[in-house]
């Protein structure tokens, strides 16, 4: 499991637009770097990031090798109800990691 750092405000007012910051540990190997053997190091990237809010998708990103190592993505969403924000990162091999955060909306 890669280390992830997620920042979601723990509470928000209903209708407020909140900022969410996500950071995950991943080398995002481009496939263009030449290794010590002289051969390119194979591409190994996270290529999909999805955020759902109580099960409904609110943000999606398709990542390419041009995204820096340890991908950082911050975005906005409307605080609608209390509940769970789920963040999933999927790599090019189809492996997915999911992290969650709770939010209380008044």
């Amino acid at each position: 499991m890669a280390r992830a750092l997620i920042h979601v405000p723990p509470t928000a007012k209903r209708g407020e637009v909140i900022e969410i910051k996500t950071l995950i540990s991943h080398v995002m190997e481009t496939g263009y770097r030449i290794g010590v053997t002289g051969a390119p190091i194979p591409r190994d990237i996270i290529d999909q990031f999805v955020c759902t809010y109580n099960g409904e998708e609110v943000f999606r990103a398709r990542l390419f090798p041009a995204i820096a190592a340890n991908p950082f993505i911050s975005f906005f969403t409307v605080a609608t109800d209390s509940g769970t924000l789920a963040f999933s990162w999927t790599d090019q091999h189809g492996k997915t990691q999911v992290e969650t955060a709770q939010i209380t909306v008044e």
Partner: protein
Amino acid sequence: MRAFNAALLFLPLISTFVAAQAADIPMNERKSGSAFIGPDTKAMQDDDTINPGMLAVLDGEALWTEKAGAAAKSCADCHGDAKATMRGVAARYPAFVQALGRPVDLEQWINMSRTEDQKAEPLPFESKELLALAAYIARQSHGMPIAVAADAQTKPFIDAGRDIFERRAGQLNLACALCHDDNWGKRLAGNLVPQAHPTGYPIYRLEWQELGSLQRRLRSCMSAMRAEPYDFGALELVDLELYLMWRARGMPLEAPAVRP
């Protein structure tokens, strides 16, 4: 060791050039590497929610409570809550160890605990685990002044480190002091030359795209100077670290820092 012998060969030549006209940077003119980076890099460093080095700090926090070795002990089993027990520790390393009769740096001290107390294998230099523990421990000294002092025991090693810092070496015949004492603030290629204070280690270096140690940075610079870099764990590197931390005494620690 090879580099040290090679340097000896050139000693007669070097002594004809005065060992770098280096004057020490006056204490009140000392600036952390943070003063020489762009505003965006600084912003990345100052915000815990976006600093990539914090991922390693979190890894270190997890490792702190993980049992290891034949003794099946975790760091926490002896050292308790790191926030309390590790407070100020990184700020006074490298530290003199009586049993060895010389200073060791933080990574070496972590490995000594691993082998002697946890009865576990030492963690390899620059391994993710060792860096994570070093980052977590260094984080507990965040904002605290560097507290490496010169005393009867440490002075010979500080002097040995200063010697390395001021001695010309390599194909370009450069000494660390030439850039970092005499020409800090000027530009080398796209970057500003900093004063080389190790206030932020382990650092997340954008060039590396990962966290790395002071020894890695020193070796990298020596290669760039076209000098043979000392091996990881070499006594010379620890002496140099000790000198650099002493030179930066009183400056606040800011680990994990972000550098270009």
